[in-house]
């Protein structure tokens, strides 16, 4: 029963602890936030420059029509995966260690989608016409082209973004009610509006639970489909080393992998900053790390399996690209990826590492770096050595692209920081449920023990007589 060292916490204390995290932020908070805002402003300036001059200033060219924007897009979409997907899967399998960590993981999902959604937009040549991608009726009967994987992307991401916002929001309503009951001023108004009159009535709880499980049932296949559709951007093309059958599952595994790493990073930070040691326990970290390790192994397998299939098919173009990847101009990206994302996760096989918060923190950053490099090596090297040798060229992303990439990290952090101060980043009601059920279960085991003793007494009595 002592799976978790989470003690029997007073419910009122749970409220106090979590609501304390919403209180007026410290100086450090404003410092980090202003750095983030500054990064976002730099990114906006770079985008304005690119908007006025044309995409050439991003140093993309023919054949490098796509570059860092797309690999960042894949990276952020990938990061968005574990939050909602893991939360939904763990909900359906009734793994209750999800309860203290799912809220911030889902928020991470939402904000990384919001970050990812920027990239296909600024990547467009004519940003000002981007609404043409939407299927709106018009007098010229012009419609978008639903055959294009980019449209599938748009559909999948819209569905995913709205569904995970709703999933996050629905799961947060009881907590918003708690906030409402304890808040004053503008916060009171905000929480009153958002909690839409939740009072914790039995009929509300029943409808809530049913809805929550139904949403989770949708979100699992949805999340899988979203990243396989992102993979389709590549897999549906004709390019060597993009046109790979195993790309969709490979992308989904990679997405879960980098998302889990991001969860670990934020886990350690929140635990440290908000002093959530009682909720985000070492045992939960241990379980998260084990899960990450398992996903890392799936990703490893799919990654290496892809090389095997190229080696086996002996396809001229694919083999060329593969050799170029390992020994060509982009070789350090590929080797960097292999070291950071393929070898580094084996550290999680050791209990000492899994139980050391800061070791996990740095490890998770290494894993994310590896996965970021992985996205770059998916996009760029195949373009550099395509079907047409005359166009082969090596291009590295320029200042504009790098600035916007840095800005995307600032944007994500900014949103997440604001979220942490406005919304409870640990689910209060679910932690209460966890405590309640554990208390009940432990009292039940006590009773079972008693009845055993009683049985034995009866037996001995019978034996005596």
């Amino acid at each position, binding site marked *: 029963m002592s799976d978790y060292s989470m003690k029997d916490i*007073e*419910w*009122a204390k749970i*409220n106090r602890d979590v609501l304390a995290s919403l209180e007026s932020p410290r100086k450090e908070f404003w410092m980090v936030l202003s750095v983030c805002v500054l990064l976002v402003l730099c990114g906006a300036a770079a985008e304005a420059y690119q908007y006025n001059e044309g995409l050439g200033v991003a140093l993309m060219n023919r054949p490098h029509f796509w570059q860092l924007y797309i690999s960042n897009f894949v990276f952020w979409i990938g990061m968005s995966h574990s939050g909602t997907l893991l939360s939904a899967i763990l909900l359906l399998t009734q793994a209750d260690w999800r309860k203290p960590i799912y809220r911030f993981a889902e928020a991470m999902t939402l904000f990384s989608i919001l970050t990812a959604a920027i990239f296909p937009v600024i990547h467009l040549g004519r940003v000002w016409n981007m609404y043409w991608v939407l*299927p709106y009726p018009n007098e*010229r*009967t*012009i*419609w*978008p*082209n*639903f*055959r294009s994987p980019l*449209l*599938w992307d748009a*559909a*999948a991401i*819209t*569905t995913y973004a*709205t*569904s995970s916002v*709703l999933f996050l929001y*629905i799961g947060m309503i*009881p907590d918003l*009610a*708690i906030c409402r*009951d*304890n808040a004053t001023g503008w916060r009171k108004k905000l929480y009153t509006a958002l909690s*839409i*009159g*939740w*009072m*914790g*009535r*039995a*009929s*509300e*709880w*029943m*409808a*809530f*639970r*049913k*809805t929550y499980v*139904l*949403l989770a049932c*949708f979100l699992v*296949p*949805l999340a899988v*489909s979203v990243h396989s*559709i992102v993979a*389709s951007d590549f897999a549906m093309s004709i390019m060597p080393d993009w046109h790979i059958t195993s790309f969709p599952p490979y992308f989904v595994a990679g997405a879960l992998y980098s998302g889990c790493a991001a969860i670990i990073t934020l886990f350690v930070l929140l635990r440290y900053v908000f002093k959530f040691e009682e909720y985000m326990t070492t045992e939960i970290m241990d379980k998260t790390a084990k899960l990450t390790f398992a996903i890392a192994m799936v990703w490893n397998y799919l990654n290496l399996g892809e090389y095997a299939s190229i080696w086996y098919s002996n396809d001229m173009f694919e083999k060329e690209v593969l050799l170029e990847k390992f020994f060509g101009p982009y070789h350090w990206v590929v080797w960097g990826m292999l070291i950071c994302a393929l070898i580094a996760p084996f550290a999680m096989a050791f209990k000492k590492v899994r139980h050391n918060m800061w070791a996990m923190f740095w490890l998770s950053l290494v894993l994310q770096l590896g996965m970021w490099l992985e996205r770059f090596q998916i996009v760029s090297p195949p373009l550099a050595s395509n079907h047409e040798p005359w166009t082969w060229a090596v291009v590295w992303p320029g200042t504009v692209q790098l600035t916007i990439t840095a800005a995307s990290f600032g944007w994500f952090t900014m949103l997440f920081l604001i979220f942490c101060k406005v919304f409870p980043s640990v689910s209060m*009601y*679910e932690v*209460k*449920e966890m405590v*309640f059920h554990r208390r009940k279960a432990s009292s039940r085991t006590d009773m079972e023990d008693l009845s055993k003793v009683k049985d034995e007494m009866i037996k001995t009595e019978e034996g005596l007589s």
Partner: protein
Amino acid sequence: MRRRKKHFLFGVYDDFDKARDVVSELKVLDLKEMVVDGIELYSPIEHPEVEEILGEFHQPIQRFTFFGAITGACCAFLLVAAAAQAMFTVQPQGGKPVIPLPMDIVITYEGTIMFGVYSTIIAFLIYAGMPKRLKKYYTQKVSEDQIGVEVQVDPAKSDKARAVLEKCGALEIREVTQ
């Protein structure tokens, strides 16, 4: 016709088991004297066992989900198929048919999920009766660690119900007519 005024009693307890006892006692009372018009529990966490006490809730949310998802699939497929041939110039592309079925599967899939999720949310709002204003007797204690029992009673016989609520160890009782 003038709306009949409703009379509510609201008791707060510090334990779920006490609230359970109150509800069963109220039911006994109701059998005898027909005083209770409705009972509702307010709690900070979900208790799946309330259905055993309060009777089953009729909340067919999954039906909304099911039909929403089917509608979504049909709408999405019709949208892609119709959009492909509604272009001012019918567009054959890549030597493939104008309405390519394998490609439409993806959008159909997304449409299914999208409508399924939305209709589930709508059903949730309907069956949870939200959004709504807070009740006058609502206390923030029930969002923290206490259980509230709301009883709608015949105003003339509210004393009896009140006695039951008190007997089971209510921390506080609020009485409201509206």
